[in-house]
Every structure is written in structure tokens, then in C-alpha cells.
């Protein structure tokens, strides 16, 4: 246990540092970009109204003061109010969270459950016709943008076949198309990556040695090849989360899914600063901690990495 701290310490520090930079950057960029009072009240608003609005939301204070106030509030769980809805921004975002998670978690499961087995199978049957056709399909799977795929699904399964609803989030049927749309691209990418990771590992000497001493093929795959291939796959999984989040914004828009992605598009259009900040922060936090968790997982699956190397991280 003693040697784990030097391994994770710098990583935690870097993660925290990048979160602070994100908070600071979003605050200053968004504040510097325009006057929210004019945006909300419209260009025809009278000067006293504008003044009152600015005073009410603290926009008349100097920027550094606003910034410190924002930080102080954020540390206490107060992210300011949505200027449009008049409710705490964090509350507004958290309300939408379950629906977005209900899309993303099944989609992630779909990625892993389809992508990894398919990729591993293709690697074990390299250059067979199954391998070739799977690889052709995956190119299509990750190059088709999610909004095009979603609309094609709607065209086929809702408009033509009438099997699933094209929007809304009220029945279990409404989950099928959005989850599928969000899951396909990641699964294709993961399948390709798993295939090349497995092929690389299968050519290593320890795999050859294990086969040579008479270990069954099944055991070679399970105990020698796969555990070694999983490390780069984990890295990719962490990196894919970003694509998944961006995909969710588009997919929610296509299917009229009332989640965080839609809230973001609407809030951005209305210059609802507090809400945009909360969402950006939430995304940055999620992705940073996901990548941190992946780093920790490497430590678990690869004991070599637990040895802290002095002077490098």
C-alpha cells in the first residue's frame, strides 16, 4: 500500500489542476463574451431595468469580485441561479441528469458488450471472411455521425416500420433508438481497437511460449492474451467517454430527449451563464475522474505500474 501514493498522487494533483483551469476559463470566457442583461431583457430594454437586472445578479461588480464570489459559492454547492428559470442552476441540471445517464450507461454497456467480444473474435479469426466483414462494418459504424445515424433509424424504424417512437422519453420503447444510436459508434471503435490490441498481444513471445508448453488455446486467450490486451483498451474507453458526451448532446437533440444535452443547447442559445457553467463543470469533472479511475485501474491490472518511478509520472 505504501507505494501506491507516489503513483496516484501526481495524477490526482494534475486532475485537480485541470478542473481549476476549466472553472476559471469558463468563468472568464463566458463573462467576457457579452452582456447577459441585454441578452435576457432584449435590446429594447430601458436603462433602469438593465441596471436593476445587473444589480440583482451581481453583474455590476468587478470581474475578480464576481469570480471570487463564484468560487466561494461553488465550494459550498451554490452555482448561482439560472437567469431564465429563476431556479438554482445546479438543481436544474441535476433534474435532467437521470435521463442523460439512462441514455449513456446502457450505451456504454453496449459499447463494451459488443465491441470487446467482437474485436477479440475478429483477432482470433484474423483474415477470415468474418474478420473482414466485421472490419468493413466497423469503419461504417464509427464514421457515420450520430445525428445522421439517429435520423436514419427514425426513418427506418419509426416512419417506415412504426416499431419505435421517434422521440420523447415516456415508454421503454423510447429508449431503444437513442441508446442504439449512441452505442453503435463506440462499439465499432472499441471492436477495431480490441482487434489490433489482441493481434499485437497474440504475436508476443509469452503467448507463443504458453501455447508451446501445451496450454489449451482457450486458456492462452483467457489467462495470457486478454489480460495483457485490456490495458490499452481501458485507455481508449476513458478517451471514448468524451465522444460519448458529445454524442449525447446530438442524440438528445435528434430524439427530443429532455436530458442535459438539450438543456445545454437551449441554455447556450439563451446565454443562461450559470447553467452552461454547471454543465461544463459537470462534464469536465466526469471526464477527469473517469480518466483518473482508468489510471487507477491500470495500477490494478498491471502491477508494473504500481512501482513509482522517481522523477516521472
Amino acid at each position, binding site marked *: 500500500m505504501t507505494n501506491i501514493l507516489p503513483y496516484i498522487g501526481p495524477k490526482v494533483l494534475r486532475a485537480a489542476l485541470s478542473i481549476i483551469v476549466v472553472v476559471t476559463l469558463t468563468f472568464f470566457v463566458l463573462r467576457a463574451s457579452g452582456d447577459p442583461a441585454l441578452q435576457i431583457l432584449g435590446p429594447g430594454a430601458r436603462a433602469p431595468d438593465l441596471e436593476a437586472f445587473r444589480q440583482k445578479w451581481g453583474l455590476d461588480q468587478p470581474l475578480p469580485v464576481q469570480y471570487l464570489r463564484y468560487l466561494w459559492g461553488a465550494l459550498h454547492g451554490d452555482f448561482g441561479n439560472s437567469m431564465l428559470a429563476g431556479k438554482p442552476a445546479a438543481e436544474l441540471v441535476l433534474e435532467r441528469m437521470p435521463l442523460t445517464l439512462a441514455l449513456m450507461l446502457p450505451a456504454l454497456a453496449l459499447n463494451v458488450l459488443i465491441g470487446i467480444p467482437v474485436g477479440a473474435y475478429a483477432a482470433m479469426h484474423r483474415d477470415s471472411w468474418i474478420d473482414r466483414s466485421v472490419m468493413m462494418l466497423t469503419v461504417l459504424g464509427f464514421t457515420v455521425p450520430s445525428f445522421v445515424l439517429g435520423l436514419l433509424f427514425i426513418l427506418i424504424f419509426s416512419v417506415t416500420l412504426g416499431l419505435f417512437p421517434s422521440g420523447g422519453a415516456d415508454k421503454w420503447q423510447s429508449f431503444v433508438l437513442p441508446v442504439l444510436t449512441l452505442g453503435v459508434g463506440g462499439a465499432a471503435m472499441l471492436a477495431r481497437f480490441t482487434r489490433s490490441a489482441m493481434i499485437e498481444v497474440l504475436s508476443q513471445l509469452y503467448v507463443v511460449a504458453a501455447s508451446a508448453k501445451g496450454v489449451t488455446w482457450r486458456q492462452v486467450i483467457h489467462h495470457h492474451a486478454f489480460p495483457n490486451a485490456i490495458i490499452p483498451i481501458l485507455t481508449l474507453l476513458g478517451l471514448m467517454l468524451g465522444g460519448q458526451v458529445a454524442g449525447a448532446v446530438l442524440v438528445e437533440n435528434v430524439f427530443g430527449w429532455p436530458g442535459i444535452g438539450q438543456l445545454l443547447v437551449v441554455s447556450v442559445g439563451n446565454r443562461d451563464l450559470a447553467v452552461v457553467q454547471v454543465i461544463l463543470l459537470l462534464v469536465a469533472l466526469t*471526464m477527469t475522474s473517469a480518466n483518473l479511475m482508468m489510471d487507477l485501474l491500470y495500477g490494478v491490472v498491471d502491477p508494473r505500474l504500481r512501482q513509482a518511478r522517481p522523477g516521472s509520472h
Partner: protein
Amino acid sequence: MQKKSRIDLPTLFASLWLCLMLLIAAAAPLIAPHDITAMDLRDRLSPPFGFGGTTVHLFGSDDLGRDVASRLYYSIRTSLLIAFGATVISVVVGTAIGFLAAYFRGLVEHFLLLLIDVQASLPFLIVALAMLAFFGNSLPLFVGLMGLYGWERNARLARGLALAAGAQGYAGATRQLGAHPLRIYLRHILPNSAATLLVAATVTFPEIILVESGLSFLGLGVQPPMTSLGVMVGTGREYITRAPWMLLSPSIVIVLTAVAVSVVGDFLRDKLDPTLK
């Protein structure tokens, strides 16, 4: 890894498709039968030729009676131009930052690495969404913003290449001869890294097409009266039941182009730089 000396069939088709796209983009004003904003309200939502339509609108017409084919040609032109400009910016900016990090080391390098971390913690689409809506939208700004796409990947790559080159004899030799660092980087290290950076650009290019069309689809990218592939898909979705051709033709172009670039990119990667995977 076996060497393939000749072009395989998918690569051939992909290259042909890309040539066709380039040709259409270049010749859009010549081959477009109608003006892209010319409306014909008596001939709205007319289906493509062969699906009950006439040859007046080969790919059908849209909700305002505008010619889908003409709009498609111009959309290809816009989307390719934006993606091309943005890719150039992304590679130039990324390379410059990467070289700077490699040259200065120390604090500058740590700062740049921190920025790369930050970029990695926010999906580009979300950053772009916020920036566009808050700073307003104009074409130069949009292209510049798209040019930020992938800078962190190119910077990391360029830094690695420069560090590797710095350890090699030729860079050391020019340094010993008293060459200015600018000369070493631009005249010696850059040409030696060019092949790898070029391959990186073929990865960035299709991704920018996808981000651009995604943003335009959300209504936050290319603004009317200009049109791009994403804009066409975005307008087409409203008429998905009555006029699916409005949405299908740009979708097909997006998909085929992205696939073609990635097939050709794979081919180039095998040819130019066997060290990249």
C-alpha cells in the same frame, strides 16, 4: 506486415469518390442547375427524378422549392473548404505549440501539457458550442474555431517528433554549426517530420467534417443563406416523413466522404509512415 505494392479495390473506390467530391466542390457554380436560394413555391417538396419527380430537380426540391442538387453541390464546397482551412490551421497551430514545448522545456512545457490536459477533459463539440453561441457566429470565426479541433493531438505529436529529432545527429550538427533555433526547427526538423504530420492531418480532416456538420445540424454552425451538409440535414429532419430525400442525399455524402477519407488515410499511413498505427 506484408508490403502491398498496388492499390486495393476499396482504396481505389475511395480515391475516386474523393476526386468526384473535389471536382464537384471546384465546379459547383458551373454544374449547379439552379441558384441555391432560388425558391419555387409552386414546386415544393418535389421528389427526385426516378421517384416520381422530374429532371428539373434531379435530387428533388426542398420545403421552399429550392433545388436539392444545387444546394448539395454548394454544401460539399462549403464543408470541404471549411474542413480544409480548419485542418491547415489545426496542423500549423499544433505543430507550432509542439515545437515550442520541445524547445523551451521546463515551465512552458508544463503549462502546455496542462492546457492539453484541460482540452482532453472537455469534448470539443461542447467547447465549440459554448464559444459559438457566446461569441456570435461569422464564417472566419467559425473556421478559426474549427481549426482548434485536434490541436492538442497535433501538438503532442509534434513535440514528440521534435524531441526525437533533437536527439538525432543532423539536428545536433546544425546546432553545432551555429544555426538559429528557428532555422533548425523550420529547415531541418519540420521537413523530417512532415510525412507523419501529413498523415495526422488525414485523421483530423474527416473528424472536422463531422464536427462541422454536427454543429451546423444544431443550427450553430454555418448560417443561412450559406449552406453546408449539416445545414441540409438539419432542415431535412423537419420533413423526414414527407420528403426524406432532403435529408438522405446530404447524409449519404457525409457518410461516404468520411469513410473514403479514412480508407485513403489508412492507405497513406501504411505507405508514408509505417511507425504510426
